[in-house]
C-alpha cells in the first residue's frame, strides 16, 4: 500500500451559467500550477468550460450542483465533469459539425466536438436518466 495517491481537487458548482467563469479561472490556475504551457492551459480551459456548459444546459435543475473533479498526475491532468441530468445515449456518436448545411443547422452541436479536438483523450459515460460524466485527459509532454 505504499503507492502514492494522486492529488485531487474537487469542485461542486451550482447549475447556473454565471458560475462557468469561476470554473474557468480555477482550472486555469490548476493547469498553470502543474506547469502546462500557455496553449495547453487554454485548450484545457476551453474544453472544461464546454463540458460545464453542457452540464448546466442539460442538468436537472437550478437548485442542483454539478461536479468537476481534477486528478493531477505526474505527466497529465484528468478532469471529470459530472451532472445528474437527463443523460444522452447518443453522446458518443457525435462527429464533426456539419457547417456546409448552414441553413439546416440549429445553432449548436459544437461543444462535444471542441472537447474532442482540444483534449488528448475523452470518454463519455451517459445513460438516459442517470446523468453524464465527461472525462478528459491532457498530457504535459510534446508527443500528444
Amino acid at each position, binding site marked *: 500500500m505504499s503507492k502514492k495517491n494522486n492529488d485531487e481537487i474537487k469542485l461542486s458548482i451550482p447549475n447556473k451559467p454565471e458560475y462557468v467563469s469561476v470554473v474557468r479561472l480555477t482550472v486555469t490556475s490548476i493547469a498553470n500550477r502543474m506547469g502546462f504551457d500557455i496553449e495547453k492551459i487554454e485548450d484545457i480551459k476551453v474544453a472544461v468550460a464546454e463540458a460545464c456548459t453542457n452540464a448546466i444546459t442539460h442538468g436537472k435543475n437550478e437548485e442542483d450542483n454539478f461536479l468537476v473533479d481534477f486528478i493531477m498526475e505526474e505527466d497529465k491532468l484528468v478532469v471529470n465533469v459530472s451532472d445528474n441530468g437527463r443523460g444522452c445515449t447518443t453522446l458518443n456518436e457525435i462527429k464533426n459539425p456539419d457547417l456546409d448545411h*448552414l441553413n439546416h443547422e440549429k445553432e449548436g452541436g459544437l461543444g462535444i466536438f471542441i472537447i474532442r479536438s482540444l483534449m488528448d483523450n475523452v470518454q463519455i459515460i451517459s445513460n438516459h436518466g442517470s446523468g453524464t460524466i465527461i472525462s478528459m485527459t491532457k498530457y504535459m509532454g510534446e508527443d500528444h
Partner: protein
Amino acid sequence: MSLIIEKYYYEEKKQWSVSLIGEVDIYTAGQLKETFIKLIEEKKEDIKINAEELDYIDSTGLGVLIGALKRLKQENKDIILFNVKPSIKKLLNITGLDKIFIIEG
C-alpha cells in the same frame, strides 16, 4: 469578467461595426444574441466585429454568431472578424468556422 458590446453603424460603408470586450459564454451569450437581433432588424448589412479585446468565446457564443450569419446570408451579407486572438483563431480553425465567417488580420 463579463461582456461589453460597443456598436456603431457606418453609413458610408453600409456596415455595422461591433467591438466585443470580455468574454462570451453561456452567461453572456444572450446579451450578444439580443444585440445582433436588434442590429439586423434595424439594418441587414455586413457586421464587422473587432475582436481585439475578446478574450474568450465558447460554443454558445459561436452559435450566436452562426445564427446571426444565417439571417444575414439571406441578403448575401457577411460577418467579418478582425484582430482575433490566437486561442480564438484556433477554435475557429478546428470547428471549420473560419470558412463561413470572413477572418481578417
